[in-house]
């Protein structure tokens, strides 16, 4: 069965959906940055994506709860190794039917998600091209990133950098925190933040497209499984994975190391320094 890759992708989308349900992203517009990377249009696109994702998450949560209960019942009934038992076969089919229901919800909601994610990606793409690509040289970009204190004694920037492989939900939760507190953020943080979100959106967009392709195949395979009345290890794994994403799993949390203790004396500034 080739459902596992599809499921993994779906799990990523769930995380993405949950993260975007956080409503306060819109507050980013309260403090406009000097370089306009998050104008109202981009924030509105983020809000829209958040709204669509919230709808998808709401629809999925009940199904996932049911999957959880059915899986528990299957295990408590000691059905592992007793697949021929008529009662276990019934439980297995119920579990498979719920799994199919989940795939159906994803199939129904993904086009909207794809549309809003693409809108956000395209908005950010335009801003990055205009504000950093065309208006800045590599030197001014460097100065923007360094902010007003290039001697290394400033506070650490956003604690998240690049696409570190952490779960999407955790990453977007951090995005939210950074954007929501943009009153204390400056251009240096916003440039990094916009880049991070854009690259994630770019990947997510591709992920959604691939997932939509996979759903049809996963549905077909599960329908075949229904006929045979079996529950696959992949399905069990997926239920656990989806649960961990929806209800929290700290195991995958990646904390970026803080700076080493800095030298406290005033830094020497050479007349040669640029």
């Amino acid at each position, binding site marked *: 069965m080739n459902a596992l890759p599809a499921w993994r992708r779906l799990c990523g989308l769930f995380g993405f959906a949950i993260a975007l349900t956080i409503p306060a992203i819109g507050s980013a517009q309260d403090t406009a940055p000097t370089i306009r990377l998050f104008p109202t249009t981009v924030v509105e696109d983020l809000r829209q994506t958040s709204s669509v994702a919230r709808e998808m998450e709401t629809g999925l949560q009940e199904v996932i709860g049911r999957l959880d209960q059915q899986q528990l019942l299957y295990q408590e009934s000691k059905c592992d190794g007793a697949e021929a038992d008529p009662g276990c076969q019934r439980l297995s089919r119920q579990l498979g039917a719920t799994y199919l229901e989940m795939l159906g919800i994803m199939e129904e909601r993904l086009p909207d998600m794809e549309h809003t994610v693409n809108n956000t990606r395209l908005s950010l*793409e335009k801003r990055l091209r205009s504000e950093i690509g065309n208006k800045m040289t590599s030197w001014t970009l460097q100065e923007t990133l360094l902010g007003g204190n*290039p001697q*290394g004694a400033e506070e650490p920037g956003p604690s998240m950098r690049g696409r570190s492989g952490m779960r999407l939900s955790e990453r977007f939760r951090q995005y939210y925190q950074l954007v929501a507190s943009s009153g204390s953020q400056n251009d240096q943080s916003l440039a990094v933040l916009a880049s991070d979100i854009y690259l994630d959106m770019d990947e997510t967009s591709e992920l959604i497209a691939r997932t939509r392709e996979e759903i049809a195949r996963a549905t077909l395979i599960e329908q075949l499984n229904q006929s045979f009345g079996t529950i696959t290890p992949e399905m069990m794994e997926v239920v656990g994975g989806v649960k961990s994403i929806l209800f929290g799993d700290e195991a995958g949390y990646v904390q970026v190391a803080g700076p080493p203790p800095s030298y406290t004396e005033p*830094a020497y500034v050479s007349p040669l320094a640029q």
Partner: protein
Amino acid sequence: MNTLNRINTLRTLAVALLSLALSACATKPPPCGSPATKNLDDAIAIVQRSLDNGCASHFDRYYDDLLTIAEGDPKPENKRIFSEFLVWASDEGLISQRQAKDYYNRYFNVKFVALASDYNNCSHTCPRRDRVMLQMERELSDKERGLLRVSLDNAGYYRADELYQEVELVLEATCTACEAGR
């Protein structure tokens, strides 16, 4: 008469050879050796004398020697010592002011000399992004030497390292956006 002419010719030849030998001695290059001391101030004094005495073409090597000596006695004050040495070299006309700035900033400043450019990122930086990042990586290695191992400026080096990662991320996103707009 023939014999007399021959003697005169030989004499002239001998004088010519002698003067050639003497002139060769006069233009023999100075030793331009590396300073043997481990004391940075003494080493700088030795290097300054050598540079003044015709060894200016060895400036790169001397600078490297001084960095190596400073690594043996790292301290924040070393930044100032190197800055003053470079200002002196520039004032003496041994290197240009631009070179002095590059020598200093490459090793002792958080900012990357590799990012110096007057043209916008879409048109200039993105087409050569790999090369720019490679130059930055090499420069970061020099900053590790100058900021960390010579000046004990941990915070400065940490910021340079962080800046490298930020530039890499922002350029990846920006160049993807630039490429999509074509």
